[in-house]
């Protein structure tokens, strides 16, 4: 298999992570890794990618501002066809995940999203991904190239920068076509600046809480555990909006792996469990003894969280 690797990410951090894997794949085949960057200031960022492992930086569509999947897909389609790239790595951000399948369809190519591993096995490109809400891992093989793969953040660590590395910077002539869609406005999502994905200890709330004021009780438990991070299940963020989306843990929210996860008043829908199943120790507090959360828990207390949480706070304080 020929291995020309092309990398695109809507964030610089994402591109640096992909470069690390791309470098490994290309080195195994003695081939090259290219990074595509778009926008007016693309040239000034090229050096950084070369230091981190790129052989070539392709500057494209300097007129493009922001991200529109239709335009970026046009640009990448042109580059892949001109340069005969055969593995295309894209970050699994929401932008990346709407871009990759569109591009794959335009190239009549295979695509795997959220790959957790990418390897060459007996000359075949194989990837793994988690399916069925974390209940299974599928190993998949590309039958043809080009192959489009999206990779979640932090799956690979960036290579250390090497200022002595050299590489080529070229300009691609491809231009995006016209499309009937346009972006009217980009707003920052309401955020409380919480990063649940890096948290060591998370206490999390669900529908068992009767009002947003009661979350104070949860904060007290978090403080007692020296874990300031609050998580929540879908209804709390998406429907009730008691907490911002950056607290939301689950399949469409954040995936977390703290050493301790305390689920309070969370029933344990599979979509929630999918977001926290890699946690070290899982504790569940729920008044319903049949709540599925107990199947996913190391320790559980069946009881009213309004009674259990204050008592647990006292018990933990007594042990300090």
């Amino acid at each position, binding site marked *: 298999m020929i291995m020309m690797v092309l990398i695109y990410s809507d964030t610089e951090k994402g591109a640096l992570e992909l470069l690390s894997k791309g470098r490994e794949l290309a080195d195994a085949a003695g081939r090259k890794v290219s990074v595509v960057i778009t926008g007016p200031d693309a040239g000034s960022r090229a050096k950084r990618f070369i230091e981190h492992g790129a052989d070539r930086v392709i500057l494209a569509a300097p007129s493009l501002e922001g991200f529109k999947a239709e335009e970026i897909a046009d640009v990448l389609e042109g580059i892949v066809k001109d340069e005969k790239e055969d593995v295309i790595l894209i970050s699994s951000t929401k932008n990346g995940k709407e871009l990759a399948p*569109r591009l794959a369809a335009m190239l009549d190519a*295979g695509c795997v999203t959220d790959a957790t591993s990418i390897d060459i096995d007996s000359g075949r490109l194989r990837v793994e991904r988690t399916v069925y*809400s974390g209940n299974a891992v599928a190993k998949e093989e590309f039958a043809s190239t080009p192959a489009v793969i999206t990779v979640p953040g932090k799956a690979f660590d960036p290579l250390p920068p090497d200022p002595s590395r050299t590489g080529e910077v070229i300009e691609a002539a491809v231009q995006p076509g016209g499309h009937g869609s346009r*972006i009217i406005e980009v707003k920052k*999502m309401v*955020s409380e600046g919480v990063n649940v994905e890096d948290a060591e200890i998370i206490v999390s709330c669900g529908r068992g809480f009767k009002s947003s004021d009661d979350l104070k009780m949860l904060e007290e438990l978090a403080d007692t555990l020296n874990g300031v991070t609050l998580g929540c299940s879908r209804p709390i963020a998406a429907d009730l909006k008691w907490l911002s989306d950056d607290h939301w843990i689950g399949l469409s929210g954040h995936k977390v792996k703290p050493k301790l996860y305390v689920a309070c008043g969370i029933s344990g829908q599979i979509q929630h469990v999918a977001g926290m199943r890699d946690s070290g120790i899982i504790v569940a507090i729920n008044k319903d003894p049949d709540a599925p959360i107990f199947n996913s828990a190391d320790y559980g*207390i069946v009881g009213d969280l309004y009674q259990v949480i204050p*008592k647990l706070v006292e*018990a933990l304080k007594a042990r300090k």
Partner: protein
Amino acid sequence: MNIVVCAKQVVDVGEIKVNPSTNKPVLEGIPRKISDIDKNAMEEAIRIKEKLGGKITAMTVGPPDARERIKELLAMGADEGVLIEAPENADYHLVSRALARGIEKMGDVDIVLCGEASIDMFSGQVGPRIAGHLRIPQLTYAFRLEADEGKIRADRNMGDTMVISESTYPVVVTVTKEINEPRLPSLMQILGSANKPLNEWKMGDLGLEGEAPRVTEVDLSGVSMERKNVIFKDDLDEAVNELADRLAKEGVTG
């Protein structure tokens, strides 16, 4: 508005168990259903039709028993159903190619509505792939939609940002679960759905006979969720003390 809703029959993921002796997930004998978010797409199609008039076609690529799922969508409010027989080893390339060809075969489609992803695989490929095949715009991750005669506007959850986009027709729109609460069909609607047209097409009818998948699955292994499952009930004072001791022993109390 001529609307196509693409829906997928999935296994009820919450019911999946891993067979400990083979380490494979057991998929046989598990109830089938319409992927949850596809019902949100269906509901949104009905609301657009209520506002602007038109016709809704529910389309799926699946096995013969997916007929039953199409009937559920007909009961909810689709006017017509299309079941495209899934080929062996169908991958996203084959499925979305088939849907795109099906949409072309219908002709004059204004809006293609899909869920953001199916709840079994959660790839989110089908919507953007259809848009790529048809080379039409896409509005993804919509949690609010406003359709008018000449254009459609979407509020989109793109993670760190909320993006407001609009598009002319034809367009592919993928929706999130927050966009609406799917309606339950009445008994009359369920009975009435039996008289609505349900077309069955094969890959050959769409010019895709012998089309090969681009990706094949070589292995599927179960990930068992092994937890200690020590559950305390009855005396709460005893329970919290017991739990606090265990957590201290595990060394996870900060």
